[in-house]
């Protein structure tokens, strides 16, 4: 009986929910399309992306992208802008005539930063909403939990999370990635340590969460390649109150630089504690502190901290003219839509949608196999995260050069090199 009740409520919730979303989406799309049409001019649908904002109103069955983001829960700081970007991009795509002349519907599900919810959400997106491709998840555990489903169903999945395992462990036939994977960020940071700092003895202080320990694993694996020796490694819990104990232990092994791999607030505590202890070795952070929160928390202690980041953080660092144009357009549009500056994660969302749209246009169909083939043929596609080159074996797309090293000076970011 309870089951009947639950089922009933589920149907109610599900249908109601779906209904709501569809209707809002439709309205937005319609209005947007209407506005656009009034602007006139018709373009060839296959060239819509170049055609900019001047295209025919898309018609017919919408093409559904399903997205799983962590809009709530612990990882919401990452997922919030992803959601905002996805919502904006849906409108943008439809304004430009949709894809293949059809409207695009990006259905966004929140996994609450919980991999189990990501499973339910992915099933819903594929079964209920008929998604032709999946975007997400925000966090690596969700992506890894979704991976068997998309692999089983044979639906392309473009993830916005960074763990190496996502594309290192088979199967990867249906999985592509937009952010620089952890190994890439580590490679960028270690390059800086060995080439710019010119030291050999490093210590690692890392958050024991997935982000931090994956960073440590990658550092330990590749340190030797950069002529570096890890002389000490200590971990801490994300909500640790004081890190002077592990730092003191680290100090006793006399490293020449400290690599801190974690997300806030730990790295900020570490920066303050280093100040307190009078440790004046260079502090190299991770892309996990590529946000104002770190500067707010660490205050003066943040000065001089160096970390790897996507070029979106300092748009002036972009040298490739095509990428510059795309990124400038994205920043302007995002600021107009949300009133906020886009962060790295918004960039991941942009790249995910862009790469998929690009592949579908080239494929000319929404058949999964064709999208798969087209994605693998992606070359030189420029977005906020960098220049993407996928192949059958490379589903990461980015290179070390797509990252820059950033230094904190006077409470803001400057290029470190």
């Amino acid at each position, binding site marked *: 009986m309870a089951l009947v009740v639950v089922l009933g409520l589920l149907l109610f919730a599900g249908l109601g929910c779906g209904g709501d979303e569809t209707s809002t989406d439709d309205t937005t799309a319609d209005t947007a399309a209407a506005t656009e049409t009034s602007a006139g001019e018709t373009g060839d649908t296959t060239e819509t992306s170049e055609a900019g904002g001047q295209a025919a109103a898309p018609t017919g069955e919408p093409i559904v992208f399903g997205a799983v983001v962590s809009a709530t829960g612990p990882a919401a*700081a990452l997922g919030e802008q992803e959601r905002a970007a996805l919502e904006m991009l849906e409108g943008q795509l439809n304004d430009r005539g949709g894809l293949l002349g059809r409207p695009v519907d990006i259905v966004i599900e929140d996994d609450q930063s919980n991999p189990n919810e990501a499973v339910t959400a992915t099933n819903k997106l594929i079964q209920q909403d008929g998604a032709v491709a999946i975007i997400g998840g925000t966090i690596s555990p969700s992506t890894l939990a979704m991976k068997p489903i998309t692999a089983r169903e044979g639906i392309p999945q473009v993830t916005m999370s960074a763990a190496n395992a996502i594309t290192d462990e088979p199967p990867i036939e249906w999985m592509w990635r937009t952010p620089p994977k952890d190994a890439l960020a580590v490679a960028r940071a270690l390059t800086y340590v060995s080439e710019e700092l010119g030291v050999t003895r490093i210590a690692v202080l890392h958050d024991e969460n997935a982000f931090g320990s994956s960073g440590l694993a990658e550092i330990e694996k590749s340190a030797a390649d950069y002529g570096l020796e890890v002389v000490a490694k200590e971990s801490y819990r994300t909500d640790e109150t004081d890190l002077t104990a592990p730092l*003191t232990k680290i*100090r006793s092994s006399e490293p020449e630089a400290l690599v801190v791999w974690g997300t806030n607030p730990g790295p900020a505590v570490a920066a303050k504690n280093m100040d307190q202890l009078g440790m004046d070795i260079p502090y190299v952070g991770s892309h996990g502190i590529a946000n104002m929160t770190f500067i707010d*928390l660490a205050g003066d202690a943040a000065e001089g901290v160096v970390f790897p980041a996507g070029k979106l953080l300092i748009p002036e660092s972009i040298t490739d003219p095509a990428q510059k144009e795309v990124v400038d357009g994205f920043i302007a549009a995002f600021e107009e839509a949300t009133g906020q500056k886009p962060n790295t994660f918004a960039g991941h969302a942009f790249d995910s949608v862009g790469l998929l749209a690009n592949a579908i246009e080239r494929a000319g169909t929404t058949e999964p196999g064709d999208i798969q083939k087209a994605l693998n043929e992606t070359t030189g596609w420029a977005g906020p995260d960098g220049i993407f080159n996928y192949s059958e074996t490379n589903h990461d797309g980015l290179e070390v050069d797509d990252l820059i090293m950033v230094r904190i000076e006077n409470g803001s970011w400057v290029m470190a090199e």
Partner: protein
Amino acid sequence: MSLQEFLQFVFAGITSGSVYALTALGFTLIYNATGIINFAQGEFVMLGGLAAVSLHSGGAPLALAAIGAVAAVTVVGLLFELLAIRPLLNASVLAQIIVTVGASLALRTAAMLIWGREAMALPAFTERAPLSVLGATVVAQTVWVLGVTALIVIALQVFYRRTMLGKAVRACAVNPMAARLLGIPYGRVVLLTFGASAAVAAAGGVLITPISFMSYSSGALLGLKGFAAAILGGLGSPAGAVAGGLALGLLESLSVGLLPWSGTSGYKDAIAFLILLLVLFARPQGLLGQRTAQKV
């Protein structure tokens, strides 16, 4: 290990330990009056810190922000007692545990909805270079924490030892019926206790935010560590709570420092919890306490 390093570990332990001690005090207060362990205690610490951050960033001077935060959280504590604890004062231990656990869930989530997820900072009470002893350093804020903790302990000791109400509360905390027979307005005592406990917790939150920052999720771990500290010190004794807190902090930091191999700090918390379990199993009355926690 050099003396300087050893001292540094001791200071690290004292810094964390003083945080635990302050949290433990709140547990002690409520336990003394009601026999209840408030599983939401850590959340009051968190609320204190975040409220102070809000007030301070809203333009209030630090001292005013601190006092305002303590006052606000005290009100929350009083409401908590009236709305959630009062109806269940005569109910089973299990019901009381579940209600405070539920409250901690609710308070934490509410805090997240109000303040968001990012950790927030507060400036140190006195801006000055860290104090240095034989090369080992400790931030001035730790001294603040220790000082206020000492003040609270002294105040509590005076209350329990010198005032009629304090004596009555302490003597018959385990038996509210007897307290009623002795003419003590039991309901009011419990209400005051929750208010006082929330105030102490909030003060702790305000004091530690400059050291360790504060976010909506900080309360859970603080609560657990604070309880471990309270148990170590023997539930019921304010001085014991402080001793337990400092002991726990020292144990943690020395376990990081003394274990010879690298990468042991991940087990720091496990060590703290293991000690909690061992103490509970072997000596539930705590290392310093006398009251029995076990059934016959």
